[in-house]
């Protein structure tokens, strides 16, 4: 999408501290993010739906929620 811009911030939204690695749990969590009905797909839904949204405040809301849904990438990729 030419009008979307991904800008990385070298910090997380919420502090995490993983004490033990757990690959099985990691696999569940990553499918919550990237799998069917995951956040990544929700993010893209919102960011596509906004193009046909007539109300300005809801264009903003879809943009902001769509952006927010993509945040967990920072966490899932750190497992």
């Amino acid at each position, binding site marked *: 999408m030419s009008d979307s811009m991904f800008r990385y911030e070298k910090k997380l939204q919420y502090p995490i501290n993983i004490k033990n690695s757990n690959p099985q749990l990691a696999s569940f969590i990553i499918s919550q993010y990237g799998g069917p009905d995951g956040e990544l797909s929700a993010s893209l839904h919102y960011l596509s739906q906004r193009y046909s949204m007539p109300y300005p405040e809801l264009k903003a809301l879809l943009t*902001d929620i769509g952006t927010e849904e993509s945040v967990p990438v920072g966490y899932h990729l750190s497992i």
Partner: protein
Amino acid sequence: MQVNKPQNNAAQKNNGMGAALGNACSDRQGTLPECAPLAVPYVPFQQKGPAKYNQMEGLATGTLFPGLNLPFFKAVEPGKLTNTALTELMALGFAIQELGLYLDTHQNDSEALELFTKYVELEREGRKKYIAMYGPLSMADAAGQSTYTWVNNPWPWDKERK
């Protein structure tokens, strides 16, 4: 089940502007349109001037709004975050995010807009100080140094060395 009690904070002192604004429902309730299209489900609208946690409690709780703090899961005691420059910055960032989403649908809530502005200013200051101490948060922050510090460790997924 544990009842949610916002601790000692803004949430109780500032029970929102709700009553002053003449809201019809309590802070934990929302409004529905009087007349609405048939067969369309509605989510109650959050009312103007809702009570808010302070930014640290907001980050620890997962929402800035006590009215949206729903005990679906075992409540985690908020306030367990260590106070560091980074968590303070995270907390401000989260509060800005929450208020921004609220303002998307409550554009005329001037009290919330003021608070949003205040948090944005605090976040900018905090960010400047953080960058001076720990290095760039965004690529552009690395400008003006003698070396390109963006590539330096640690990255967010690097374990902190204790």
